[in-house]
């Protein structure tokens, strides 16, 4: 940890955050709004990377955790009118419970079987939202009466601050001894267990941390949008974006995942003039990165630095 603070990565990150913090002073509200969403998305991707990159669990259902947090917070605010902060906290806690439930099969099944279990969890949540339309707003979406603030600059700073703090915690965790044990149990669970580490406990902890940040970010996003809908926080397509972000930015780097998410959202916006081809172009670029630079953006940069 000590040499991290003197490393180049730390300085680059610091400069990036400082530059990003000054953006509201000279760019339009439109760009701020775009980046606000991108930052929340970055937290989704980083939380996913902790599970996949380190614990080695292919979670196809990041939106199960995100959606649970987002909808819990939204419904509590909509039905009972509780304060925004209480709702956000309870949303994150609901997501932790969901993560615990999702983690139970993870301790039994592996590989594609686990991937499918998580995918099914998302489909169930989606069905739940549509079937209980009275409570959740169904396919139209849930209207949320309160927002944190309507100031674009303040929203942007909240998102940036939240992403920075999450990144620091998740990155710190991934570099700590716990992260190393997780990485070992992801790559060779038998040997890691033979070395005396409790794999089940570590993976469960990874799930809970990942779920907490996913849920928190989902709840914050809902209060930023003022609405919760299947298309924004639950749909499998959203989950695919999270996974693509993490792989694009560089798996097992945590910080790269945030980079990938920001790239994905901003690129999607820049390509808007191309109309329906935008998604095609983004997917094609992502596929090329997967095929030719499997380490992702940050993975490629870090390995070059390590070599020199």
């Amino acid at each position: 940890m000590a040499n991290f603070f003197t490393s180049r990565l730390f300085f680059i990150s610091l400069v990036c955050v400082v530059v990003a913090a000054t953006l509201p002073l000279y760019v339009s509200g439109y760009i701020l709004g775009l980046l606000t969403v991108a930052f929340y998305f970055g937290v989704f991707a980083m939380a996913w990377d902790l599970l996949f990159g380190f614990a080695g669990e292919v979670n196809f259902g990041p939106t199960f955790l995100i959606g649970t947090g987002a909808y819990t917070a939204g419904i509590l605010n909509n039905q009972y009118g509780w304060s925004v902060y209480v709702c956000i906290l309870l949303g994150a806690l609901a997501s932790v419970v969901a993560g615990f439930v999702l983690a139970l099969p993870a301790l039994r099944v592996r590989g594609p079987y686990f991937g499918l279990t998580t995918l099914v969890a998302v489909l169930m949540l989606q069905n739940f939202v549509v079937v209980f339309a009275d409570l959740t707003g169904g396919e139209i979406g849930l209207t949320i009466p309160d927002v944190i603030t309507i100031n674009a600059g303040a929203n942007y700073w909240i998102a940036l601050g939240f992403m920075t703090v999450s990144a620091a915690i998740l990155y710190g965790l991934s570099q700590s001894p716990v992260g190393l044990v997780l990485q070992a149990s992801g790559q060779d669970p038998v040997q890691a267990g033979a070395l005396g580490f409790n794999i089940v406990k570590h993976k469960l902890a990874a799930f809970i941390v990942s779920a907490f940040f996913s849920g928190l970010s989902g709840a914050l996003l809902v209060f930023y949008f003022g609405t919760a809908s299947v298309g924004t926080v639950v749909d499998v397509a959203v989950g695919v974006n999270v996974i693509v972000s993490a792989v694009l930015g560089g798996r097992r780097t945590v910080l790269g995942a945030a980079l990938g998410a920001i790239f994905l959202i901003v690129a999607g916006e820049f390509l808007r003039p191309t109309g329906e081809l935008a998604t095609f172009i983004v997917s094609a670029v992502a596929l090329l990165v997967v095929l030719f630079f499997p380490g992702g953006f940050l993975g490629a940069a870090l390995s070059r630095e390590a070599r020199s």
Partner: protein
Amino acid sequence: MLALQILIDGFAISALYALGATGFTLIFGVSGVLNLSHGAIMVAAAVAAWAAASVLHLDIYSGALFGVGVALIMAFATYFAVVKPIQNSRRIPNEEKEIFVLTGTLLWGIMIQELIAYFFTNNAKTVLPIVEGVVDIFGNRTPRNNIFTALVCCLVIGLLWLLVNRTRTGKAVLAASMNPRGVTLLGLELTQIYIVVWGIYGILAGIAGVLLGMFLGVSSYSVGPLTASAFSIVVLGGLGSVSGSLIAAFVVGYLETITAYMISPAYRTIPALLLLVFVMYIRPQGLLGRR
């Protein structure tokens, strides 16, 4: 009467599911690849058959053949452009190839889906059925197309069984799914077996796609649900086990039909999902899984 109707309707959809899932499970059994562009290839076949009839003005049979041909080309493209480069890549560690193949084929599927949406819009397309009209089975009016679909599916699956169990090439494929190293020691080129399997897969997915286009109609929105249903059928039956997938396809098909008739079409997919979760807990390797 309702029971008979469910029996007839459920059979056609189950047979279609079985055909779609067979190719998917065959590839997994032989090369360990889960092809997440499966739904996109099926939709591409159906849309190609539709376009052949309505844009190129071909007759129904040539249109259907054209659809299957497009699926075959797509399957080879998936293998050579996405799967093979990842499998041969030296920069990707072996234990992570699985997730890279999943991500790669997923992105490839999205690309196909977006291209279809761009050139042919998102509207649902129905391929003209080869046989038309309805017949009366013990008082149930059944479209002839349902019977035709079920017959073709059973015939194709039967042919596949013959191919795998009775021909030299088929036996090589079977052997590769049991022990790839043993096959190479016997002097067979593994790459060639993979190419054969992807060819079989393309034809199966193509036929399933065209039949689906005649039976229910497809749009680019069907890509995700189709992949998900094939994935869940295959896992329910046991990854890599063809007979397991056949059983699972009928279980899922009938469960959906019963729910749609007895409760509500809105809840159609829920019982199958619950069953899947249940099986995951009790028997993680699926009904007839080997591991």
